[in-house]
């Protein structure tokens, strides 16, 4: 298979994954018993503290159906939807916050989620892999074992509890970080960036601590196995310093599967976003998703889920395309 064919086939698979994802995303929420409009009407009645008479409700219902584009058969809606998403990346208006378009929500939230969770993901991936590497490489050393046990103890602690403990420590008992996120509006200045970093530090730290455990385990297994390879033995026989062996040999060779894992775990970011954002009042896609579900806002839900699908699939595609640069042995067949 030639290079072009390889790229074409990867991109093809990418599009199919997107398509399958988008389709599942479209149909599943339709099965939800909570009709967004009914939910909305109920909410209105609660807000008002007064019940409306049936005629008013009926009127509201029809006009909202029209507004939200929920008319027509489900097939029509689907075709229309696929067209809009794939051609103009338009998810329609939010149902709960009509007429604000979903894309506007997403574009406000996305940078926050990517900024915080992306950074935390990469950092914890790096730390986890390095600890895993050391633990696998020096598996007989006491220090490495200690480091590994530390990771292994931290790892199973439920995220939420870990976060609470950190909050207690660093925002309450020893208040060097804020308890809740405050982000001031206005143009990006140094001051603002500083404030964002200050406000994001604790959530990021939690994500990092909670995240690297898995990388430790994976990397340890990989590097432990990699140590048996002939070139590692030979490097040792060359008298190569063990640090060099560890990084240039064992690490460079075991990191490849971990890179794939990193790309795929971007999906986890969107799940992880949820808890973090709730706990730290941090703006982002996770909270948006939660709101969308809570209020039965299909359009917003689609938007966020598709955003997530696109990110993961794109990351995986990029990794696949870049992989040959990382692994010179790759041959296309």
């Amino acid at each position, binding site marked *: 298979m030639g290079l072009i064919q390889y790229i074409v086939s990867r991109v093809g698979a990418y599009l199919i994954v997107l398509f399958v994802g988008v389709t599942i995303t479209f149909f599943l929420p339709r099965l939800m018993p909570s009709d967004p409009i009914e939910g909305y009407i109920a909410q209105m009645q609660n807000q008002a503290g007064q019940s409306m008479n049936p005629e008013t409700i009926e009127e509201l219902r029809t006009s909202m159906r029209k507004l939200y584009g929920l008319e027509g058969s489900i097939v029509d809606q689907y075709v229309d939807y696929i067209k809009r998403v794939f051609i103009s990346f338009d998810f329609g208006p939010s149902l709960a916050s009509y007429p604000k378009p979903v894309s506007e929500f997403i574009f406000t939230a996305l940078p926050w989620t990517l900024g915080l969770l992306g950074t935390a993901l990469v950092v914890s991936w790096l730390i986890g892999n390095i600890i895993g590497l050391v633990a696998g490489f020096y598996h007989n050393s006491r220090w490495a074992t200690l480091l590994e046990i530390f990771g292994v103890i931290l790892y199973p602690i439920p995220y939420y509890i870990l976060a609470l403990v950190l909050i207690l420590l660093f925002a309450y008992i020893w208040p060097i970080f804020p308890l809740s996120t405050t982000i001031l509006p206005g143009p990006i200045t140094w001051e603002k960036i500083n404030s964002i970093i200050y406000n994001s530090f604790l959530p990021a730290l939690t994500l990092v601590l909670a995240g690297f455990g898995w990388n430790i385990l994976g990397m340890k297994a990989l590097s432990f196995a990699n140590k*048996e390879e002939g070139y590692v033995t030979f490097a040792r026989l060359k008298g190569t310093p063990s640090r060099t062996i560890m990084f240039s040999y064992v690490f460079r060779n075991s990191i490849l599967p971990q890179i794939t894992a990193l790309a795929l775990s971007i999906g986890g970011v969107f799940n992880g976003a949820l808890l973090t954002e709730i706990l730290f009042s941090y703006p982002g896609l996770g909270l948006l998703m939660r709101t969308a579900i809570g209020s039965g806002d299909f359009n917003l839900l689609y938007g966020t889920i598709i955003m997530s699908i696109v990110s993961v699939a794109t990351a995986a595609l990029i990794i696949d395309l870049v992989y*040959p*640069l990382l692994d*010179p042995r790759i*041959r296309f067949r």
Partner: protein
Amino acid sequence: MTTVLKTEGLNKSYRLGGFINRVKINALDEVNLHIESDAPVIISLVGESGSGKTTLAKVILRLVEPSSGTATIYDQQVAGKGAVPSKHTFLSSIQPIFQNPFEAFSAYRSVDKYLQRTANRINEASAKEAELNIEDALASVGLKYADVKGKYRNQFSGGELQRISIARALIPRPKMIIADEPVSMIDASLRMNIINLFLSLKEDYNTSFLYITHDLATAYYVSDYIAVMYRGTIVEFGNAKSILTSPRHPYTQLLLDSIALTDRKWERKPFAASDIEAKEFQFTGCRFRNRCPLAEDICKHDRPQPIALPDNRDVYCHFVEKTAQKLETTP
């Protein structure tokens, strides 16, 4: 007459390298071999490292799909379009000995498992028979079953593993064994035992061999036929004894000249082996032309066609007539 081995226009190309500097390598380039015989035969395949010997073996073993062409073993087409031999007959008639004995067994399975599987599956032997089959096969390569049992590949020396590989291939008593450098890691004394074993298998069980080797002396000792390969092409093919005693292709001659003998020391003159392997694979004409003392313009453009000589061999050289006398083999 049975067609013991026949390849017709066999081609196999690989692509090497990354995105930018990718090269195509014709590891097999129009390989045509044909041997008809009622008696079992031993065919040696010799040549430069990387010249496509293993590739040819793998095509015959159905492990590599040829880019084009066909291969036939004992009247049965095994490779190329339309080859669908039944699995069991195929396995019981052809068995391989792989080149790198360290790679031939999993690091996670003790090597005797492979022997047992072969005995159980291909011989369809009962547990007891299997035990005997294995015992026999190992004994014929100088090993004791008890020393092999339960051990993993890194607990053997290279030669031991190679012998175990051979023993495994012997268990089904196949019609043809494809032996890819089966004795490269075995000491001289045992090596002869194994080579003699091949001969007696040929006598007693009618087993034919495709014997891939760098050891030209043993090739001379056992083979009926020999094929010499260079960069994916056959350069000389035919009767083993005559080719090895009077080579007619310049490469064969170079090869024979490079043997480390035990009675005559090499002349210590500057010696540069070719290294631009990938480049030579790209040549349109004769691939040996860069190192050939006879090379002329025609060698650049025309792939030499086989010239059949009366002593039952084909030589792929434009200047066969000039090679009858010994050449200066400085490339």
